[in-house]
């Protein structure tokens, strides 16, 4: 368990945000942590539409632990983690 800073991007928003996530968080929690800075602030909310997370160009399962994604994708602190509404 360790805090890991990322630059979270919600697709459609114009700026990434500094977001601290925990390596024990699952990607659904990461998605929420990123979305809270954009959705209903500058991005219109879409009720009941699930999120998906893209890391290093690939969609990552929401039940995956963030720490595993960090290891697998060799993420640096402050790398982009992109969240978007699932199509």
């Amino acid at each position: 368990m360790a805090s890991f800073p990322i630059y979270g991007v919600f697709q459609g928003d114009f700026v990434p945000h500094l977001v601290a996530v925990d390596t024990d968080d699952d990607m659904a929690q990461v998605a929420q942590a990123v979305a809270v800075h954009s959705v209903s602030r500058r991005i219109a909310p879409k009720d009941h539409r699930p999120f998906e997370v893209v890391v290093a160009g690939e969609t990552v399962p929401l039940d995956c632990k963030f720490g595993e994604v960090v290891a697998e994708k060799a993420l640096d602190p402050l790398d982009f983690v992109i969240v978007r509404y699932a199509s």
Partner: protein
Amino acid sequence: MTILQRDDWYDIARDVDWTLSYVDEKEAFPEQWSGIGPVPKEAWAAWDEPYRCTYRDYVSVQRDKESGAHAVREALKRANLYDRLDPAHTAASHLHMGATCFVEQMAITMQSRFCRFAPAPAWRNMGVYGMLDETRHAQLDLAFSHDLLKSDPRFDWCNKGFHTNEWGILAVRNFFDDWMLSCNVVEAAIATSLVVEHGFTNVQFIALAADAMAAGDIDFSNLLSSIQTDEARHAQAGFPTLEIMMKHDPERAQRIFDVSLWRSFRLFQTLTGTSMDYYTPLEHRKRSFKEFMLEWVITQHERVTRDLGLKHPWYWDQFLECLDHGHHAMHLGTWFWRPTLFWKPNAGVSRAERAWLNEKYPSWEESWGTLWDQIIDNVNSGAIDKTLPLTLPALCNLTQLPLGSGWNPFNLKQWKSEYKGRVYNFDSEISKWCFDIEPERYAGHLNIIDRFLTGMIQPPSVEGCLSYMSLTPDVMGDDAYNYRWAQDYRDYAKAAE
């Protein structure tokens, strides 16, 4: 006794040099400050300023300028003119005073360095006038701001700003620390005299002075005009320097030009783009920032490139693309993170202003309008908390500006470099290129995000950041019109029902 005509003695007086015998030339003019590189010493004999100025002329003209500027200042001091100005416009004067007064102060040091380390005596001579100019500008800013302190504590930032860690100030300070205080005189003349002063601030001061006059701010307009006339003169130091560099070290000249053009443009977008397209009251806008850039800055740049043999920077197409977006991004960002400002930004997106933005920037609605729509809904439903930040935006390790602020939301992409084990992030491919060609120049600097993550900002929260930036409630940014502009949309929606 007959007094010689100026032309009879001028060239001797301005161009006296001597052959050093007690000290080695390289010790007296060390490379780190002169920066002449492979350019032979003799080549600098051709350095020729495009105008003539003697100390006698200088003192006489400056005395008249000072008298004029202060006469208007004294006359207006008692008229309480400031208190009747549009709050959107006053934001531009707070921003200007806070962000530029100490740049003038830094410029005194840069000009002093010309006086001491410039490789041509004529250039060293000119540096004296430049140094006196910049002293006058810094003092004028302080005097005018001091008069206005009774009306608004934000004018205290004219003196205080550069002693804080406010993020915008940090971006400006970082640029000028680099191109005024830390670099050699060749770099400073090309980057600051030519690119910043001649290319940007000279025309910016003319535009800002005109906008201020139109908005009824005669005092501010008077100040800017008085300063601009000096800038127009001493900025000329860049031309002969570039001319010699183009003959003897053209690649380096091109590189200095390309890096400083991009870096100063990004600052210019932030300071002037937002003022022209959002803070200037709609009825007083003469042209958009993009139109201003194309008509004045780009045309001028193309003339310089043609006359002196420079090529367009490799990023020219991206630069032109950025004219449509960068300042809109910076404006949305500064408005949203408004508690981190020492001025009150005008949202500038009432229905009438929005129509103007769409006319001037056909892609504005798609890129920026949709984001503002959500903000407007939040304002009109009373959810002001949703229009305020919970965290920091990602920041560039070169420009110190937010990632994403150089383009539109559809082109947001990560640009990063690793140098000596540390990862650096950039707002664009161009900023990454600037870093990659001279990493040692920029490595080690900590932007606000780095300072946050290394524990320099305590407590580690938005409140901690505001305290770190010295932002107190009496100056902290908020919407210039207290959100009255959003009422426009509510009325329209009701009428449509």
